[in-house]
């Protein structure tokens, strides 16, 4: 694995971290965090840690992102979710 590719991944990782930190829209920040998790899993594969990469991909980018989305959807104001309006 060439150093250049690794450096590119690392730079991209920092960019996603900054996006997750600075994005005004919370949904974009959460998606950036998910991409951050997947990039991290790729870096773990390059660092020869398949177990860690598998766990990182499943738990951090899958489960934690979905929990973030659940929390985000729960904390929006009542009424601005079209699904809920149809329910009543």
């Amino acid at each position, binding site marked *: 694995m060439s150093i250049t590719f690794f450096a590119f991944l690392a730079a991209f990782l920092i960019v996603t971290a900054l996006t997750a930190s600075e994005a005004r829209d919370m949904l974009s920040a959460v998606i950036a965090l998910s991409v951050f998790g997947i990039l991290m899993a790729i870096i773990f594969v390059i660092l020869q840690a398949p*177990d860690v990469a598998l766990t990182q991909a499943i738990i951090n980018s899958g489960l934690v992102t979905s929990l973030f989305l*659940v*929390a985000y959807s729960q904390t929006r104001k009542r009424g601005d979710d079209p699904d*809920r309006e149809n329910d009543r």
Partner: protein
Amino acid sequence: MKSPRNLQRLGALALSLALGWWLWQGVTISPFQGITGPAARYIHGTARDTGAANVVAAILFDYRGFDTLGEASVIYTTVCGVALLFAKRRYRRSSHGLSFIVKRSMALLVPFILLYASSIIVMGHLSPGGGFQGGSVMATVTILFCVIYGSSFEAARVSPKVKETIESSGALLFVLIGLVGLVTGGAFLTNIAAGFPRGTMGQLFSGGTIPLLNIAVGMKVGAGLSTLFYSMVKILEDPTESSPPEV
């Protein structure tokens, strides 16, 4: 209002940069001279000591199995706590789910996902994976159900009490396997020395207690994370909850 906020940001930035510089100074990169310390023992002794092919699984479930008990207990604590925070809510349909075609194809897909999860758990001592990963994949099935069928469906199929039972039994199984070692071998979580069969390396039935502990952790994590996700989805606005009690 504007300036103290900016001042705070500047302070935070300065603190973070100083911390980063300090941490960077502390990094030691010595030329590689071979692995030393306990790691060397893990690499060279795994085959003889445990019979497992995956060294990371051998460390997690045999050499440092006590850490894993603690780690699984963190999830257990979190699940119990989230259930405590969102106690006694009604179940509610969040949506009607997606279209018929998606539902049918999901029904076809679910057995395969469950099979994949079980294989990750059972083969944990042979290939990358194990109880945590497989349990999480199983919990993903809950999430898929919630997205595709709407949140009321999943509760009707697997009741929370069943999940609670699976989670606690997994935890108990882990401790009981540990206590077997205490009774026979003299130390908690003893594996081969307590009489568990080592088996042939690379076979499904090998590694002594490692597959058993993987299954215990898989039960605990799968049921736990599914309960966790579901507790957070099921809540809804509760009109009785407006007045904060005093003292």
